[in-house]
């Protein structure tokens, strides 16, 4: 890996900084994993209602998905297993970078399907009060932060993989 900004280098972080970042990663992973599993075990769950209520620029696309049964089943499947796998990876620190990017993409889709902009209102009630910024966006930016401050190699399977690769390379040399 090439040299990054000094502050973004895990090696320069204090123990406290590392712990906070890893905790954030694990908690977001926990949330993803439970969102996925809860949907998996609920036979009635479908993204149709959420998609059908979509507003803003991409609503046409989302409504199209909601009204096409085969596509909807596929999207539901990808969503559920995406959430579960991303959650597991974030908790374990496995393929952290890929999982983080996938999580950002998923959250971005949730956000643009139903952004809390002034002038848009939704049939499905929100559990809080939001204007432009909602919890989806905050979780998304938290993942972006984890992308900027990667923690997979501080504490996670990625570190072991990295070490094995590096020592393998050393041994060959």
């Amino acid at each position, binding site marked *: *890996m090439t040299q990054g900004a000094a502050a973004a280098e895990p090696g320069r972080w204090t123990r406290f900084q590392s712990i906070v970042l890893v905790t954030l990663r694990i908690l977001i992973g926990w949330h993803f994993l439970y969102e996925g599993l809860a949907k998996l*075990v609920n036979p009635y769950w479908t993204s149709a209602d959420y998609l059908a209520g979509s507003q803003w620029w991409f609503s046409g696309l989302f409504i199209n998905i909601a009204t096409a049964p085969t596509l909807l089943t596929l999207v539901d499947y990808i969503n559920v297993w995406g959430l579960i796998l991303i959650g597991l990876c974030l908790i374990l620190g496995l393929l952290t970078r890929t999982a983080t990017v996938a999580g950002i993409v998923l959250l971005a889709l949730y956000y643009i399907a139903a952004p809390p902009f002034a002038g848009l209102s939704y049939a499905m009630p929100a559990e809080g009060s939001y204007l432009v910024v909602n919890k989806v966006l905050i979780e998304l930016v938290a993942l972006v932060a984890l992308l900027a401050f990667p923690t997979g*190699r501080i504490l996670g399977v990625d570190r072991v993989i*990295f070490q094995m690769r*590096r020592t393998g390379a050393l041994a060959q040399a």
Partner: protein
Amino acid sequence: MSDEGTNTQSNQPATDKAGIVGRRGFLELVVSIPVIGVFLYNFFRKKAADDMKKEAIMAELGVRESGPAYIPEAVSRPPGERIRLGIIGNGGEGEALVRHAGFAHPDWVEEQRQAAAEDPRNQALQVYLEQDDLNVELTAVCDVFDVRAERGIAASQVATRPGGRPANPPAKRFRHYHDMLTSGEVDGVIIATPDHWHSQMSIDAAAEGIHVYCEKCMTQTEEQTQAMYDAIKNSDIVFQLGHQNRQSEAHIKAREVIDANILGPITLVEGTTNRNTPWGAWVWDIHEEGNPQTIDWELFEGPALNKVPFSLERFFRWRCWFDYGTGLSGDLLSHEYDAVNQILQLGIPKSAVASGGIYYFKDGRDVPDVFQAVYEYPERELTFVYSATLANGQYRGLKFMGHDATMQVSGDLSVTADRNSSRYEEKIGSGVIDPSRPMFTYRPGFRGIDAITSATAEYFVSRGLLYTYRGGRRMSAYHLLIGEWLDVIRNGGETSCNIERGFEEAITCHMATRSYLENRKVEWDPVRRRIV
């Protein structure tokens, strides 16, 4: 220089020279395993608790949240012989019925194609194209308005047919329905005229041995009801009254809930109608081509109580006058009553009191736009209340109120335990049953969304009158009811809304109408079979 190469002590990986992960590295590998462990422990604990609660409730109720155990097949066998249909009264409702039999007007097809292109939630065309082949031909059309008769003929030879089946030859137009009945060109007729014509047409059809699918309200008066009942009973024809709720999956499930006695003693049933649009209040469009030359006014009036000069309002908005219908009673109370009769098998009430008035639509109509009816069933120890306004759209639903629980029925169904229930007292106390939320819900097995495009469509959907489901597939309730009628014609059996149910429907509605018009409580004499 690599990231890891600059690691300080705290993060320095411990590896030995052989390149094997060291003790620290191993610890760091497994440190997130406990997190997964804690997660799974909590997840399964929560799931087990939820499942146990649900199991406890379901074991207590003795009914499942899955689809109805038994859904009568609308069509028992593939439709072998072709049946020739005639439509009498090809207005809004008539055209819809003909469409659900497989003959959409080409303009409708085009409109729906555009509507679906603009908003993919519009699936009316798709549902039409996917409906089953009923193996019928629309051979005859009768309407007193030329434009509607022509539309019927256009529909009969439409090229866009369910399942891509070929177009049929055009239907023949009959000026008078009687000529159609005696023409030998129809096996069955769909009667979708204003109510004042229903009984005479059905009686005449029965006399000719022509099967009848008749729109509700079955008749306009008690006398017509008696005459029609006798005529149908003394004939061999198959009769179906057009209450689509008979094919609604949620209504069939509701009957299962009643049979399982989940609600405890039911003392009050409340059926309601709330609409708040001119269209919902029967202020329907007046066709620009409607005039004394294109409309046979004399034939339209027919057996109407009062003969008046030609009137476009009366022709196109006939539900607003007692001369042709019975207002809320025959139009919408009839639906609510038939749903309750289907679910509880109530029959005709002992007494009825009704009141109301013309409070909002002061447009010359003589039927009330706000209407309430109270029916007593002392033998069943319950009251059925119907409450309606055409000037407020607040949804109130159809509720069955028992001592132990309340059931709300619409396109779907929910049962909520009563806070003071005797039967569920223990489970409410122990927290297994929460009286603030439904303990049982049934949503037809459909993963997707319902296309609801207008306030009136929403009303019909909420009443299970537009669409229902079969095996997760959205179907038109009209289509299923027509299919059932045709199936009985071919293979025998009983229609779900036969003349007995029709008699009960008509009498019950007319009791409310009489009570309103005569401003008194009326009773049903079950021996003399008369409203007194």
